[in-house]
């Protein structure tokens, strides 16, 4: 019963997210991108069950969401392949699920280059998922660059900021 309540409220949440998305795309003065809004948020029929939320929340590899990288690098280290494999399987089993991968970089170097570097990292994770059969329509890649990074880290401590975070739209 409690679980059902939870699922209901999650469904409600995703509906709110949908409405919010609809609003934010209207006041554009610029060209906009037709595929951005419609494709991406087109999960009307999705239910909490179809999205397998319990699976996502379980204490499995799916709860691990960060892939870390070396300085100025975006190749995926072997230790993250299991994590990526689990997420690929999840996406393949739940067609309505939508993933957003958010790339990050440490503060060293320029803001713009780091934005591109963070993007390369999110794309590297996406491509690893593609290789396991996940369709592009289930994934959006974005980057935050160094904008939310620790601006005072020293050497090794900056490694925490060189990462790509996996998030799901329903969350």
């Amino acid at each position, binding site marked *: 019963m409690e679980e059902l309540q939870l699922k209901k409220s999650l469904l409600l949440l995703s509906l709110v997210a949908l409405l919010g998305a609809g609003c934010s795309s209207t006041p554009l003065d*610029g060209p906009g991108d037709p595929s*951005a809004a419609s494709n991406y948020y087109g999960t009307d029929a999705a239910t909490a069950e179809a999205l397998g939320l319990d699976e996502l929340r379980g204490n499995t590899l799916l709860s691990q969401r960060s892939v870390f990288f070396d300085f100025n690098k975006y190749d995926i280290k072997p230790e993250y392949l299991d994590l990526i494999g689990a997420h690929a399987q999840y996406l393949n089993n739940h067609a309505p699920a939508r993933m957003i991968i958010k790339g990050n970089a440490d503060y*060293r170097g*320029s803001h713009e280059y780091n*934005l591109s570097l963070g993007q390369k990292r999110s*794309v590297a994770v996406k491509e690893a998922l593609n290789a396991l059969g996940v369709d592009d329509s289930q994934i959006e890649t974005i980057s935050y660059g160094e*904008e939310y990074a620790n601006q005072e880290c020293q050497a090794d401590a900056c490694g925490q900021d060189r990462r790509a975070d996996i998030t799901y739209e329903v969350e």
Partner: protein
Amino acid sequence: MIHRIYSLFFGILLLFATPIYALEVIEILGGKASEIPIAIVPFEGLENIGGQKAHQIISSDLNRTGLFRPLNTRGISNSPSSDININYTKWSSMDAQFIVVGKVESENPISGNIKITWSLIDIFKEKTVVSMRYIGKKSQYRAIAHKVSDNVYEHLTGSKGVFHTKIAYVKKVNNKKYSLNVADFDGFNSRPILNTTQPIISPRWSPDGEKIAYVSFEKKKPVIYIQNLRTGKRTLLANFKGNNSAPAWSPDSRKLAIVLTYNQNSQIYTINADGSGIKQLMRSNAINTEPSWAPNGEDIYFSSNRGGSPQIYKVNINDDEISRVTYEGKYNLSPSISYDGKLLIFLTNDQGKFKVAIQNLISNQVLKISEGPADESPIFAPNGHLVLFTYKDYGKTTKIGTVSINGLKRLPINVGSSIIQEPTWGPITN
């Protein structure tokens, strides 16, 4: 080192239009000796207006450029306030090659307007270079003093001064509040033009002076806005799928180069300032970002890791022909081109220290002009003689400052104790 400064500098000075004093400027080149000794004499009369003094403003302006060495004029008695009865021997013995004298008077007691009369005098030639008079409101006092600096600069170097221009920068407070601010080039008279709770990066002033394009994370991802400075109204230039960033104006202010990702890696596009006519510039599997439009309107400089590590390249927008520009160092970013297209500044990683470097695009000679260790965001002044950049104050808080292109003068711009980053420099206007 001094030789390198000399030769790079010599090249730059030859590019100047023919000023009255071009010969003298070139003759005294070389290291510290290249700074022209000049005495800015305290102005007579009502010089102190609300704690501001014209001679201090002018002195500080000229000092920033690395081309002048303002002499200490404190305690000098019987100072002149006009070009009449100048004791040339006395000023010559103080090593002054030029002096600036003037007076500040009330022009109209009812309106409160002030009148500033001033002269630039050549001590060696024993003659007046220029005499002028400005009338304005008291609130325009700093602006008038900057105008005097501009005139002195132009007469002695042949290039326009930038002392009357504006800059913009991003202020970040507690990782929670971000604002885009506009200020005089020296940091005075700052005011916010945008307040938000999400990061703002890459502001770029349009060459016509009317607008600033910038990247905002307000929509939970980077999108590009253009804000009109007169009306304060802003429009969304680019909100395509993925990231939208790195706006760079074309010289005629009608187009921008921008960077989009569309679920892939960063690529450069051109777009009209009204948001129409989007067009991809070139394709590659590497990062292409940080476009900077050359003044010829045909070349776009950018950073790319297509050769492994990031370097500066340029692409011709008509035929997509690409050539590599930087070869010194393994990590070069953030290109900015001088107004005449002859100098490039960029960020270089010098054994773990990020410094500003300048490259003469004719000789390809490179000179590092800042010390690091965490400098960023170099951007040219509109006359190409100064560079605005960020550095970490005491190794911690990011601040803005200027460095002269000969590397001689690095000075902070004080706009408060918060994190100050991502600067841009407005054009010279009349």
